[in-house]
């Protein structure tokens, strides 16, 4: 019996790939978008109405063109990131329309929340970039919300950004704003998420986003996921093939538009709660998909993504911690390159929580530490020191220990590492309240990163001008 969820048999991966090719060839993928259909036809693809069919050679050519790793420039060059290889980057929740308060109350998210999360991302030791919809603000018009979020992220953080893919206009706005910051946007300066629609199709606006970002040479995360038993077969294997075929077709389009477009490969799968028909992200089945996405990513030699610290809870309890840790640990140990939703979400991504965000950062830090290779240098082996001290060694007295004592171990910010009596005396002792205190401190300590005043002015001007029309 093969018990490993991480190391899949090559034969299984071949079969997943083979069945995906069969679907791509026989059933096809639906692209309800004239422009995309035109591109496929121009390149000699077989089409029937909105259905596009793929040959093995098309997919092979695509996957050979996609880079195995790439970099994204940040406004602050020190914070530029590399995606792929041994790197593991993380971004917070993506898309939640609500905030859940410590009282359990659920309320609409606002632009003030967007700004507060930007500040948390900027001061985060572990998050590498903000997501393009860290929350969906309810107090600004829907049509221009992406402009407000992009502007806040660009000014309040100097980490890499995510482009907005909610519409073709939003994608173009993302590029226009980036051009104000960078004279040269030939290299990647953002990454954007495209979700397919399961089964076996894309929504028209997502297809537009693929084409706009690919044309501009900007990286994409192309992700497909079935709800097992609803929008795909109830079995992991069956849903997996649907998602893989759909993602490959999207990557293929990006590469027809602009060969070599950097893409992060994504596929997921979530069971439908068979007793109620609900949606349950945090599950061993979801985690299995994470393991498989990394195996397939290695199979195709392209970077891959996963979900992050997902959970079904609505407060900072055992369930929230347990589920989040299972999901993120699986991602890390499987060798994922990029985790979205790494911090802050509750209830299958439906809401963000500040306290959960703070707690998840500890988890993110622990995962990054876990995945950092153990150091095997001469200084780390410390052979001279071991010989010198022999059996009588008290290493605490040594410079070797002193020099490394601040950085060698992972130090959590929220988790307790105290003796029982200290814990009893702790004020406040409750984890949600302690997270709240850390939150206040973080927001108080936040400093706006340097930005050329002229650039800032032009960003604001662009957004104001666009909001008028």
């Amino acid at each position, binding site marked *: 019996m093969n018990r490993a969820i991480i190391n899949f048999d090559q034969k299984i991966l071949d079969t997943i790939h083979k069945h995906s090719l069969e679907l791509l060839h026989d059933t096809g993928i639906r692209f309800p978008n004239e422009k995309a259909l035109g591109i496929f036809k121009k390149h000699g693809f077989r089409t029937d109405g909105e259905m596009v069919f793929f040959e093995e050679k098309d997919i092979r050519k695509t996957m050979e063109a996609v880079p195995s790793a790439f970099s994204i420039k940040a406004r602050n060059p020190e914070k530029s990131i590399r995606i792929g290889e041994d790197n593991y980057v993380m971004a917070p929740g993506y898309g939640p329309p*609500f905030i859940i308060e410590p009282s359990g109350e659920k309320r609409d998210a606002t632009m003030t929340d967007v700004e507060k999360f930007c500040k948390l991302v900027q001061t985060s030791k572990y998050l590498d970039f903000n997501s393009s919809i860290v929350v*969906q603000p309810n107090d600004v018009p829907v049509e221009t919300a992406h402009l407000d979020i992009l502007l806040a992220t660009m000014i309040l953080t100097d980490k890499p950004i995510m482009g907005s893919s909610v519409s073709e206009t939003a994608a173009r706005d993302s590029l226009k704003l980036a051009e104000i910051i960078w004279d040269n946007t030939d290299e990647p300066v953002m990454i954007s998420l495209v979700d397919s629609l399961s089964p076996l199709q894309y*929504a028209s606006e997502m297809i537009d986003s693929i084409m706009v970002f690919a044309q501009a040479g900007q990286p994409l995360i192309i992700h497909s996921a079935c709800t097992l038993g609803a929008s795909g077969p109830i079995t992991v294997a069956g849903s997996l093939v649907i998602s893989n075929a759909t993602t490959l077709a999207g990557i293929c389009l990006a590469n027809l538009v602009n060969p070599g477009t950097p893409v992060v490969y994504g596929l997921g799968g979530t069971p439908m709660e068979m007793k109620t*028909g609900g949606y349950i992200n945090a599950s061993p089945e979801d985690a299995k998909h994470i393991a498989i996405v990394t195996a397939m990513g290695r199979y195709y030699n392209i970077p891959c993504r996963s979900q992050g610290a997902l959970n079904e809870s609505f407060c900072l309890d055992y369930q929230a911690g347990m589920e989040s840790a299972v999901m993120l640990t699986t991602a890390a140990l499987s060798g994922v390159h990029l985790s979205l939703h790494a911090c802050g979400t509750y209830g299958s991504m439906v809401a963000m929580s500040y306290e959960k965000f703070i707690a998840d950062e500890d988890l993110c830090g622990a995962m990054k530490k876990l995945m950092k290779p153990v150091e095997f240098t001469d200084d780390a082996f410390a052979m001279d020191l071991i010989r010198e001290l022999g059996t009588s060694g008290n290493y605490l007295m040594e410079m070797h220990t002193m020099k490394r004592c601040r950085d060698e171990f992972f130090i959590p910010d929220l988790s307790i590492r105290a003796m029982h009596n200290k814990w009893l005396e702790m004020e406040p002792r409750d984890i949600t309240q302690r997270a709240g205190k850390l939150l206040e401190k973080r927001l108080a300590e936040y400093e706006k990163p340097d930005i050329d005043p002229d650039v800032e002015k032009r960003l604001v001007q662009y957004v104001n001008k666009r909001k008028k029309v």
Partner: protein
Amino acid sequence: MAIEDIFEAVLTFNKVAVAEGVKAELDAGTEIDSILNEALIGALDVVGKKFSEGEMFVPEMLQAAKAMKAGLEVLKPYLRSESVASKGTVIIGTVKGDQHDIGKNLVAMMIEGAGFEVVDMGVNVDADRFVKAVSEHNAGVLCLSALLTTTMPAMENAVAVIKKSGLAVKTIIGGAPVTVTFADQVGADGYSDDAPSAVELVRKLMAT
């Protein structure tokens, strides 16, 4: 076959047995109303109860509904027009700009299972198409689904357009970000947060 056998066949998802059972009862001269109410609808009431108690799973419930429908098909030609043959028509769809349909499909299947005619308009449906469908099918209830806060305005608009059209249809709304407060605010006739209570809502609104 007796009434109890049809009842049992619905609960064991046996479409063929349900259809055959109904046929046999008709041939034997059993009262049409009792085939309908005691065997078919009665069985589905039990299904609904078992589902609410967490004893029956969603796919099982849907198969039971399918089996019940197979019996209904056989019975249909014998039903007088005023009886259950036209329990009423329900139009359902996901509003303009929104592509989410898993929840909507579930709601549609369960309403259908409860014996209503359901016309599923799919996703990304604009208000005018809803109006057209409602008048074309003379629908009693319109169900709108939205999963994005960004498409809730489109939902609000659809409710308003339907109201303005003067059609005598009740509009109910749902989807993860939708709340009862929102429903009141936009003047919808009902809201529910899951499929079984959506069915209850439709039953109630159709009865008035």
